[in-house]
């Protein structure tokens, strides 16, 4: 039986999976983002003229490596760690 993790992810047979295609992104109970496809784009200009902030600020987009669905995104400076979300058993 699957268990909800978020709008974009679910836990299936002990693995965190993409809800669109079922691709597995590592064991439940552990951070999943390092198993995702991550693209880091400059925040400046990321979505139109008002995205006019600092040059070093990036938008991290974590996508499903199988189907390209966008699973999560976060604002970051390049040296900062991923924001990790974990569901306990």
């Amino acid at each position, binding site marked *: 039986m699957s*268990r*909800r*993790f*978020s*709008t*974009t992810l679910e836990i299936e047979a002990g693995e965190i999976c993409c809800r669109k295609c079922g691709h597995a992104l590592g064991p439940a109970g552990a951070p999943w983002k390092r198993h995702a*496809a*991550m*693209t880091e784009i400059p*925040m400046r200009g*990321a*979505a*139109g*003229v*008002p*995205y*006019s*902030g*600092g040059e070093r*600020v990036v*938008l991290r*987009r*974590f*996508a499903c*490596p199988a*189907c*390209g*669905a*966008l*699973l*999560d*995104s*976060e*604002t*970051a*400076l390049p040296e*900062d760690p991923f*924001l*990790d*979300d*974990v*569901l*306990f058993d």
Partner: protein
Amino acid sequence: MDPITFSIIRHRLFRIVDEAVITLKHVSGSAITNEGHDLMVSLYRADGSLLMGGVGFLHHLTSAAEACKATIRRFGDDINEGDVFLLNDPYTAALHTSDIYLVAPIHHGGELVAWSACFVHVYDIGATNPGGFCPDAPDIFTEGFSSPGIRLVSGGTVNRDVMDTMLNMVRSPEMVALDMSSMIACNNVARERMLALIEKYGHETVDEACRTLIGQSEELLRERLRELPDGSWQSRQYIDVKGEVFKVALTMTKRDDRLVFDFSGSSPQAPYAINCTRWASLGGLFAPLFPLLCFDITWNEGVVRPIEMIAPEGSIVNCTRPAPVSVATVGAIQSVNNAACAAIGKMLDASEKYASEATAVWHANHFAVFMFGRNQHGGEAIGILTETFAGSGGARNFADGIDVGGEIPNPISRMANVETLETIFPLRYLFRRRMTDSGGPGRYRGGAGMEIGLTPHDAPDGGLHYVVSGKGADFPMSEGLAGGYPGAPNSYIWVKNNEAEPDPRNTDAGFSRSVDDLPGEQERISWGVFPLMGDDVLYVRWNGGGGYGDPLDREPETVLEDCRTGAVSRETAETVYGVVIDESLSSFDPSATAARRKALAAARIPAEAAE
């Protein structure tokens, strides 16, 4: 107790707060209170614990509880019927010195039975800069009058010596006196209505109802927490001051019926006034918690009990005296509030039952621009641009964020009419409108923010000055949810038209309709005191709300409609939403859109990950 009586008493407590808020507004004369609703009124138990959290800025509900408790500690048995105490020291309970608490004991039959408390952001507090936000204050000592507790009213009579001493230390004392009067009147009404309630039902019955109400809130929140999955969620907020970056880091952990907010990893306290004290951080995390987790639970002490906060001493979220904190309410407190909103949103999104209550972050870059100077009526005017309260809504899993939709920590926030500001200040609005592409893209789009242009008009001194502070303009802060992009960041621009060459387009800068039409050099600003003289313009754009879900999943028809209403540009429709729309905005191309979306999804997978 009899459930009908309980229910009547519960509703009467709500109405007491409502009526006290109306009184506060009617007596107050400042736009920040009347039109911006930068205020709060709540009721407290005899021991100072929260009984009935009111509306207005929710950051204050728990801080004012601490103000009541600090007053009890200081004055002990010397708290009498008809007294009113003033407290605004951030290291005792307040958020910053400008937000003055007036707390008033309510006695019945000679016994202290409850407290009422309220705050307004007073017209001035005698700090380095008019209006109280002091970007370059080195310490709390330069941030104006500050009291850890003083008796302003004794047995119903104002202590003139105390009042006059305070008024002697502020600019525009007549306006600050009006602020004081409004809060005294507000507390009077709260006391009278509370006593009428006790007269009608008896102290024991009302007291039992209050105890029951608090117990009920605690039980309901614990039950809700047990329904939510156990886990931990992280969020992060950045503050930029003159190129220096500060962080508020949060790991929120939920186990069974407990919720812990751990701010370990946040930056050490800053040399700038963005810091906040421990009580302010606690208020900051409760501001989104009340509406997001307790939307159907009465906001009182019962809600406080299951919550724990870890805020390292000496950090930006628990600074030590005498660190400056005057910008806290648009600085670290807001970052705490935003981080909590983001983490709570992710926790709700992990629950089948509560996912529809989840929200991306709203109007995270709440800012402060305080104008000051001689106005067209010959007086000295000080006041905030209430636009900061207009906000922008975060998107949810079933709907877009509300354009210019306010903010989470103040359910009744709003902005003044253009005419109000033009009446108070020698200024003219060139434009004030919803900002294209400001809402964070997503399957559901974040609500748009706005942009405004201001220029001097009929100013006896040729213009005025303003103080700008907040969290800077480098970072977007209204984080998205479930892949949604954050809302666009703020922008503050000083357009120097006075020094500009005559515009070859032969346009009059005084009637420009956009920042691009202005002839002068543009300087990005976000911190400090600046002049607004002659033909110069202050341009302010504020953030949109965070988006929800994948922008490639947004219905193409909806994106087309966004372009027609100006919420989204045609370029962003194509590059972010993958919807290819013709130049006249009459239709989108379905096959080009499908191809574009496929290409954008593929581009998210770097070659090494695609193997």
